[in-house]
């Protein structure tokens, strides 16, 4: 129990650090975000001093207040779920935009993570079981090479190959927005699947190596345990030993990784969404960077961080639950 409480305290601390970083980064950075925004807006029309003042206030960059007052105002806003207004889509609240985009990321990432996890673990089990065979000798270095390829380049290549040269998939977007209205219709759903297929595929391919290599290493360690030898000696079938004796225990490190990966999908697959112009939260973050939409930038970072922290916490707790050794060691 003491272990659990310590972890909770740690995560509270981490959340505080994230929130505080989010507050201080814009203020420590050289340059004035408000000036940048005003510059941007004055291209579209006249910006009065009052508007400037309001803008500064909306971003909590009201420079008349001392820093600590700004900080507590910022905290208060956060607790009320007030993330400020977007500049690119002024005056839409940031929370609303994030609320729309996040589902695209969760759907795309969720499917990709689950598929990558299952396939990767399975390959890892097989490769470890047949260690030294041709499968292992080919697959393990191949996967290693795959993990060194810059992901976004892999995405670019597959986009070039499958969408541009072969014309199998669309080049960008989340669905065919020119011809189809969103809704629970067959046309819409099939269009979504058609658009998500290639991004999901690249994500699965890119994540495969990590799952597989972790599983292989952990499986190899487990295979040399006495209880595996015992199971073999009892004459149990290979498949039973492989999955119910070895893999079941070897999968632990990957389970934690899985929980963390689930947390990371909320953050969007930044590079995937960039390459495929997929309307998720990662794409929104990049647009915010390019448009200098600072409120958006900060809020998205905060949401991503909170999701990742939550998932990490979950993974920690899951580990305590799944591995009795952790429970006993720590509480003793």
């Amino acid at each position, binding site marked *: 129990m003491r272990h659990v409480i310590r972890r909770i305290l740690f995560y509270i601390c981490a959340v505080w650090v994230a929130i505080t970083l989010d507050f201080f980064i814009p203020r420590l950075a050289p340059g004035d975000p408000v000036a940048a925004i005003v510059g941007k807006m004055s291209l579209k029309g006249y910006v009065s001093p009052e508007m400037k003042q309001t803008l500064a206030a909306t971003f909590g960059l009201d420079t008349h207040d001392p820093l600590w007052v700004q900080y507590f105002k910022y905290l208060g806003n956060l607790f009320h779920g007030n993330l400020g207004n977007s500049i690119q889509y002024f005056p839409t609240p940031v929370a609303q935009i994030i609320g729309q985009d996040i589902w695209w990321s969760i759907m795309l990432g969720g499917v990709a993570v689950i598929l990558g996890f299952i396939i990767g673990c399975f390959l890892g089990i097989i490769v470890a079981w047949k260690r030294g065979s041709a499968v292992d000798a080919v697959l393990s270095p191949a996967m290693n090479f795959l993990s060194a390829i810059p992901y976004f380049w892999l995405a*670019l290549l597959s986009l070039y190959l499958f969408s541009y040269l072969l014309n199998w998939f669309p080049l960008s977007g989340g669905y065919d927005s020119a011809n189809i209205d969103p809704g629970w219709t067959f046309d819409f759903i099939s269009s979504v699947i058609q658009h998500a297929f290639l991004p999901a595929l690249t994500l699965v391919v890119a994540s495969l190596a990590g799952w597989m290599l972790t599983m292989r290493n952990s499986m190899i360690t487990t295979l040399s345990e006495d209880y595996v030898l015992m199971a073999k000696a009892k004459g149990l079938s290979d498949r039973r030993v492989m999955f119910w004796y070895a893999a079941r225990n070897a999968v632990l490190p990957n389970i934690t990784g899985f929980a963390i990966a689930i947390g990371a999908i909320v953050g969007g697959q930044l590079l995937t969404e960039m390459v495929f112009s997929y309307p998720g939260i990662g794409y929104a973050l990049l647009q915010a960077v390019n448009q200098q939409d600072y409120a958006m930038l900060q809020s998205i*970072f905060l949401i991503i961080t909170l999701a990742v922290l939550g998932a990490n916490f979950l993974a920690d707790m899951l580990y305590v639950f799944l591995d009795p050794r952790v429970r006993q060691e720590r509480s003793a």
Partner: protein
Amino acid sequence: MKIQEVNSPASAVPVALLPDDPLHTRFLNVLLAIWRAMTSSRRVAVGSAIVGFFILIGLIGPFFMPYNPNATSHLFITPPSPTHWLGTTVVGEDIFSQLIYGTRTSVFWGLGTGIMVTLLSVVVGLIGGYFGGWIDDVLTLLTNVSLVLPALPLAIVLAAYFPRGPLTISFVIVFTNWAWQARVLRSQTLSMRSREFVTAARMSGESSLRIIFHEIFPNEIGLVVAGFVSTTIYVVLTWAALEFLGLGDGTIPSWGSLLYWAQQAGALGGGLWWWFIPPGACIAILGAGLSLINFGIDEIADPRLRIERPANVEKHKKAVKLEKAERNGDTLLPL
């Protein structure tokens, strides 16, 4: 992901060090051990050759560039030809020259940043592990918090606020990536703190800093090298990603900025494969070289991970037999 699982505290390249050797001899021994490690495994040898090749290109390549990488010309978007080996961009820049110059930028900023990350983690890990107490508590908390914060989004947000340029990217990457290695080194230092040679050094009145960096650090050099290699893979990939996202200085040719401009000019939709395939391939090959080294180091540290080949097994058995015979001889003697 991968980088995170690589280092268990035990995965140091085994280095036999006699604590009473003078410092330069110890470092020579370490270098010798690294050289032996490099040549004993085929993976490490191939990986080192690849990395060495890129370093060489980065060093001397720019002296042999056919064109000035930033010079524009009237030859817009020409495919590869004998005069322009990798074709030209939309404003007529020679892509081959840009790639060569970009190798210098990417490789040296990548390695330099890798060294910076390693240095920071060495300082944090060793100081925390050696001193213990509240210093360790604070540093461990910092390390763990840094570990759970998502690195890439944080890097993007930081890079967006600070002026564009290689220094910013370097700083951002150091800031977001030091923690893994620091944690590994801390636990190793913790276990080393109570060894005899450290106690002896303390007894003889050496200062704490001297003990940390002259006594303990040389014993962890294998771990540090392994960590440096895996960090550098990550640094090179993140660097390219940040530049690709437009957070770098686009006027300096590098692998990432080549990809950025290719993307901006719609090279993909226009079928200009010679623009975006070569820089990505360079990153991939350098990354593969580094991960080969890493894989080799892992295998040296943990023999169970090796992919055994039948021919080697035979040799191995003989060696084991010999070893056994020797050991038997040794143990028999005192009896």
